[in-house]
Structures are given as C-alpha cells and as structure tokens.
C-alpha cells in the first residue's frame, strides 16, 4: 500500500512539474500520467470499497443475501473491467506493431513529442492487470469465506460503506473490534 502511495506521489510530482511550464506536449504527458495513475489506483479503490453502490434496497436485505450480492457485485465489476483490460491489451498490442509481425515498428503519437505509444499504454495496461489480479484474489477470499459461512468477513471486505460501518460499530460495542 505504501509503495503504491509512493508511486502515486511520484506521478503527481511529475504532473505538477510538467504543468507549470508551458512546454510543448505538457498536455499530452499530463494525459498519460492521468491515465496511468488512474489505472494504478483502480485496485486501491476496490480495496477501500470506494466504488459507488446504490444501497437503498441492499440495506434492507438479511446478511446472507447481502454477502451474496457483494460477491455478485465484485463479479460484475470484474467482468466489465476484464473487457476494459482486454481492449487495453489490444490497443497496447496494436501500438507495438504486432499486426505487422514486426516489433520494431512502434506507433508514434501524432504530436510534437511523437511518443512511442506503447510506453504509456503498456504502463496503463499494467495498472489494469494489477486491478484484475487484486479483484481476482479478493474474489477467491470472498468465496472461501462464503463456504465457511462467514458472512461478516465478506461484508467487512466487500460490503458497502454504510453496511460495514454498522458492523464495525456493532463489533466495537461488543469488544470484538480487533479482528483484522
């Protein structure tokens, strides 16, 4: 987590540095930094349970159903992001010149910088792959909890924010807080 944050600091310092000067291509580089740092942060958002979910109904469901929905929600996110990652792979692959069977022909951006696109796209794709791995590992752990019938564990890892807060409050009041 710390290393991850450190990466983001670096990205951000870079962006700040580049933006102050009106050098040609600053906007292009900002765009790349934006794409890459966002892609790297997807997994982080997932672990922080910060993805927006409309829990108007969810809140009224009993625990096991909620836990099941948590898993369904994660699967849905995983499916959608897998498509995004796959597209990202095609874009990245295309820029590496793979269609011509010749990896020396890299696509360059049509800007004064003529960036070899495969570089930012590769880093971006890597961020998405990291998300996929994070989500997949999380899914495995949730499934493990599911078979143990440990609903609370699922909610703590993947429940919506409000639901988790309720549980945590309850745990604290029963003196059970220190479980993670």
């Amino acid at each position: 987590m710390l290393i991850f944050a450190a990466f983001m600091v670096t990205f951000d310092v870079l962006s700040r540095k580049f933006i102050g000067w009106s050098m040609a291509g600053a906007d292009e580089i900002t765009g790349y930094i934006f794409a890459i740092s966002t892609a790297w942060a997807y997994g982080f958002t997932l672990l922080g349970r910060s993805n927006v979910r409309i829990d108007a109904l969810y809140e009224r469901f009993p625990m096991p159903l909620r836990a099941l929905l948590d898993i369904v929600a994660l699967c849905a996110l995983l499916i959608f992001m897998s498509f995004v990652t796959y597209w990202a792979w095609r874009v990245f692959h295309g820029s590496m010149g793979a269609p011509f069977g010749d990896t020396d022909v890299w696509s360059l951006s049509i800007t004064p910088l003529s960036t070899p696109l495969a570089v930012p796209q590769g880093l971006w794709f890597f961020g998405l792959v990291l998300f996929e791995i994070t989500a997949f590992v999380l899914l495995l752990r949730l499934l493990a909890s599911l078979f143990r019938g440990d609903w609370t564990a699922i909610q703590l890892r993947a429940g919506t924010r409000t639901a988790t807060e309720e549980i945590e409050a309850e745990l604290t009041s029963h003196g059970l807080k220190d479980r993670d």
Partner: protein
Amino acid sequence: MLLFTVLVLLVLIALAIPVGAALGILALALDWEFGGWNFYPALGEITWQYSIEFILAAVPLFILLGEILLRSGIAERMYGAMVQWLSWLPGGLMHSNIGACAMFAATSGSSVATAATIGTVALPQAEKRGYNERLFLGTLAAGGTLGILVPPSINLIIYGLLTDTSVPQLYLAGFIPGLLLATLFMATVIIACTWKREWGGTPVETSWASRIASLPHLLPPAFIFLVVIGSIYAGFATPTEAASLGVVAALVLAAANRTLTFRMLRDAIEGTMRTTAMVMIIILAAIFLNFLFGLIGLTQQLTDFVTGLGWGPTETMIALIIFFIILGCFMETFSMLLTTTPLVAPIVFSMGFDPVWYGILLTVLLETALITPPIGVNLYVVQGVRKGGAMNDVIIGALPFVVTMFAMLVLLMVFPGLATWLPSLFF
C-alpha cells in the same frame, strides 16, 4: 429496446452492483442484443482516448486542490473571518456556514469536500453557542452543495464533456445561480430564526476592528479563486491548466502556512486517487453507453417516444424535473449525472433548450439530490463529521433547504437569463 435498457439498468442498480460496472454491463448487453457485437473492437481506442483526455485530467487536480486546502488550515481561518462578518444576522453562525461554504465552493469543485471541510470547522461551535442543532446541520449539508454549482465544478466539466458544451461558458453560467442560491439559503435561515428566536443561539461578539483584522484570512481562498477562474477567463488557461495552477498555488499557500508536510501530501494524494479511480470507472462506462446509445439508435427512439407524448417543452421539462427529484432520493450525484445525461440531454436539446442553461438546471437538481433522504451524500458527510447523534437530525435540518432549492428551480425555469445572461456577455 428502451424497455430492455431501463429494466436492465434498474435491476443492476437495485442489486447494489457498483454503478460503473452496472453501466458497463448494460453497454455490453446492449451491444450483444442490438449491436450484433459490432462496436466492440472500437471500444479499445475509445477507452484509451478518454483515459488520456486532457479535460478529464482536471478532475483529479480539482479534487487534489480541495484536499490540500482542507488539510492546510486555510479553510479554518476563512471560517473564522466569515464568523466576524456574517454572524450579526438573525441565525448567527449559520450564515457564516453558508458564506464559508460559498467561498470554499469557489475554490473547490466538489460538494462533498465543501461540506466536509466547513463541517469539520463549524460543528464544534454549534453546541458551544446553543444553536438549534438540526438547523445548524442543515445549513452545512445544504451550503456544501454549492460546491458543484459555484465554479470551478467537477460535475460541470463532466457534463460539458458528455454534451460537447463549453466548460468556461458553463462556469460563467454558474456564478449568478450560485450566489443567488447562497442568498436564498441565508434568507431561509433568517425566516426560520425570526419565527423561532431560540434557534439562533448566542451571538458572537464582534467589532469593526476584529472584522478588519480578519480580512487577511479571506485572501488565500480569494487568491486561489482568482488564479483558477481568472486564468480561464483571461484566456491563458484551459480548465485543466487552471486546476494545475490552483494546485500549485494551494501548495505554496500551505507551505507559507507551514502545514505542507510529506504526510499531508501523501494523505491528500491518496484521497484524490481513490476518488478519481472511482469516478473514472463510472465515466468510462458512461462514455461507452453514450457511444452505444447513439449507434444503436436508442437516443432517437427515446426522443421520438417523448415527442410522441405530445407534451410541450415546458411540460416535458417539469416532468423531467420531477423525475430527477425522485431519482435524486435514491441515487448519488455522479452516477445520476452520468447515467441520465446520455439519455436525457439529446431530448432536452432537441426541444430547443439551451445546453448551458440545462447544465445549470441539472446541477441544481444534483444539489437537491445531495440532501434528499434516504441517499443524500452530503447528509452522510455531515453526519460523519459529527460523530454521534441520530441521522434524522441532519435529514430534518436539511429539509427547509430542499424547499429553497425548489424555489431556485422555479426561478431558473421562469428566468432562464439567470444562467445564460453572464455567458452571453463574454461569448
């Protein structure tokens, strides 16, 4: 096709599937069902193009700007100055809450950041001075919503991107409605406190000397506002560049305040990236949807359907407003903006409404959504800052301001010039 879309969307969202994934899966399902899987090769390029979109890069920068201001103590001093200047009105500190929110909104593009920042600073005062707690909480939740109406605003950037509307024009259009809404909020407090004197709490002692002495504390936010908005209208910066300038200015101010530490920066960036990634998943999915709706002809179908109802533009707009108010009770603002804009905006434009005006109207509706129960993000934010007490206090306290917002909507409908006059002077 229309029924299919609405049903799938409703089911996915009701099941508490993350909104980004719900929109994305809907897009995939539509492509599968009606597009014959034809469009999906193009989606890779779209993903990349929008991931590096320079206008969108303003989103994390504005969030970062707010995070830095929040953590640097600048907001706290600004609130102190507002107390000196505004607390003589009936309702005392509650006016300072609204004033400080409006001013903070002018440096921040987010309503949540505004409510959280001002809430943190203001709440300790409520008990100390015997205010009616509910109304006090209400001013914070409602005042905070100004964040997305008073420029800079993150929501207006996204709206501008989705509808091809100029962001600088939208920002100019937000000024007058933003100030007017703040004034209306204050009027609400005055009315409430004239009616029930005991709600007003004990007044703060002020003098002209201390008012003058507090003025310098208003300078940092004014400076940032000038840097961000000034650079856009002076014509030398795009919104994204202005946001970067704002971040640099905020860092300089934080350094001058001696609150710039590595830890503070790390926290600020962590918070920023978390929010940005969350928003970007939804934005990407909404962009796919936007693209697909156009390609499979759904937008056309929906427009035909609405035109077929035979309602005039005004009736349609009123129906839309009611629909948004109901939707706003259950949905969070970003999701609402991104889910509905691809569908609704083409209809509205085809009826001859001005895109800039509709952007502002929609923003006021989103503000209402922020404080309408059961899902009102600002209600949760204020409750979260408060730590303890019943959620109902915040909800009831915010209700009078929901009424105020309805009044604002009516004003916008009757006098569209409130939004369109200022941009028409410049463009």
